[in-house]
């Protein structure tokens, strides 16, 4: 019994957990090794960008627009109480650029893109397509993982900016209805409180989220266990884990950006 116990550093479950972390770390390390090594799969990256970015546009348009309208509607009463309804565009712009656009875009993408990648790579793993690439002397990691992670890292920021724009449009619609603010006046007062740091932090956050979504989806899919059950699990875990990580990253990045803001 005592001999058996020594086989594990902690307990069996925890050991497996830490082993998982190590494997994930190795996976990320491998990504950084492969991503800068030629040949580059530009064609495949562009195809993935199209799949990930362009095909998410309808969803992002809808959610962005609704978020803009709803947030404006809900914020109005408390500002009107101070007679500060004219602050509405600025307030919404700050909320959208600093927090809503990166976070909501990331969460929606985690749901749509993350699960998609997890399921796609999972089914490729399960049906031995990844092995098939390997035995045809093709580096499946480079062809499947590097391209997808690169595409999400590039596309989530773009989707985020698009979300912010559509969100502000929705907000403008609502403000225009209630306060009869003109388009130019709205955007002038919306952009005046936004600093370079806000935009930069929003972009940086989106890049991190994009990387996270791609990485988690690929890791879970690439290492899916055999069987169709493994595919579903990979898709599901991709969403759960990437959302969890996105929230952790959110608070850490907000904290750090606040240090910079104050300094």
């Amino acid at each position, binding site marked *: 019994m005592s001999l058996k116990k020594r*086989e594990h*550093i902690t307990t069996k479950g925890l*050991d497996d957990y*830490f082993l*998982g972390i190590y494997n994930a770390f190795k996976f990320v390390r491998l990504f950084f090794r492969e991503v800068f090594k030629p040949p580059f799969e530009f064609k495949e990256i562009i195809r993935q960008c199209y799949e990930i970015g362009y095909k998410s546009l309808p969803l992002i348009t809808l959610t962005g627009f609704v978020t803009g309208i709803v947030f404006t509607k809900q914020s109005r009463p408390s500002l009107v109480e101070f007679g500060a309804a004219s602050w509405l565009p600025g307030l919404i712009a700050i909320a959208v650029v600093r927090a809503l656009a990166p976070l909501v875009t990331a969460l929606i993408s985690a749901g749509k893109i993350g699960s998609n990648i997890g399921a796609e790579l999972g089914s490729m793993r399960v049906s031995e397509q990844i092995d098939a690439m390997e035995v045809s002397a093709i580096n499946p990691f480079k062809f499947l993982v590097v391209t997808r992670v690169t595409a999400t890292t590039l596309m989530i920021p773009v989707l985020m900016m698009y979300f912010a724009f559509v969100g502000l449009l929705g907000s403008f619609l609502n403000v225009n209805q209630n306060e009869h603010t003109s388009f130019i006046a709205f955007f002038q007062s919306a952009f005046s409180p936004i600093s370079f740091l806000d935009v930069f932090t929003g972009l940086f956050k989106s890049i991190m989220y994009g990387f996270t979504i791609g990485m988690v989806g690929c890791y879970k899919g690439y290492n899916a266990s055999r069987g169709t059950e493994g595919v579903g699990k990979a898709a599901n875990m991709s969403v759960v884990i990437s959302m969890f990580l996105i929230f952790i990253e959110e608070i850490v990045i907000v904290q*750090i950006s*606040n*240090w910079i803001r104050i300094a």
Partner: protein
Amino acid sequence: MATKNKHAIRVGLFIFIGLIFFTVGVLAIGNINKTFTKTFLIKTVFDDVSGLQPGNNIWLSGVKIGTVKEINFNENTQVEVIMKIEKKSQQYIRKNAKAKISSEGLIGNKIIVISGGTPDSAPVENGDALPIEKTYSTEKMMNTLQENNINMLTITDNLKIMSEKMIEGQGTIGKLLNDETLYKNLEHTVATLTRAAENTQELTASVSNFTKKLNEKGGFANDLVTDTIIFNNIRQSVAQLKEVISTADEFANNLKDASVDINNNTNSPLGILLHDEKSAASLKLSIQNLESSTEKLDETMEALQHNFLLKGYFKKKDKNDDTE
């Protein structure tokens, strides 16, 4: 295989702990600037902190120099506030500077404002306690005024009964003056009166301070007080209050004299004091004076009640009284 696994698990554990430390560290540090600026602590004891909270700002001449670290009760149920102040501001805070509770703008947080202090006083040191600057909120002013009024009424009532008894010759005088409790009462009355007078004086000072502020040009209050009649009313009230005080003072002195006399002449014939018609008349007059002054005080109160600035306060008070 097994050893390689163990190595992998250790690395995984290490990464995990590292990430936890990083995340917790980033969140715990909170404000990196604050963390790395040197600070020192000073404290102040307030009767009432009006909702001040740890983390609220501390201003010196309108500049933020620190935050409230802790708020504790002391044994007298007063509130001890410990303030964390930037070291670089230390030289500008003098030992005789005063602290008071204020607020950041119209609807902002509560803050502590440190002001005053003269260059000839030494800068504060770590752990020093700053004195507080007395502030008169309108509420407090009104409360004191009313309390005074009630005090005065009791006094006059007491005196009235006493003097009536004296004049009617009820009971023996010896009984009156040898009665310890009565004597004590008298002394107590005098003390209360003196206190009342002091209170009133303080109050008038603050009211006149208040009106002076109203008079200041360009001030917020000045803008509000456009109606000169009201302003005059207030001024008049102050004058009347002053008068009350002087009367009360005089009376108190009289009484004190009398009591001192009694005190000194416990063995001498008591008739001197009480059979002397002059002193009796003087006593009566004093009481009349006092009576009229309480009336005047009542009037003042009424005048103040009509002052629109304070109307709100009285309305609220009436409402409270009604509900009770």
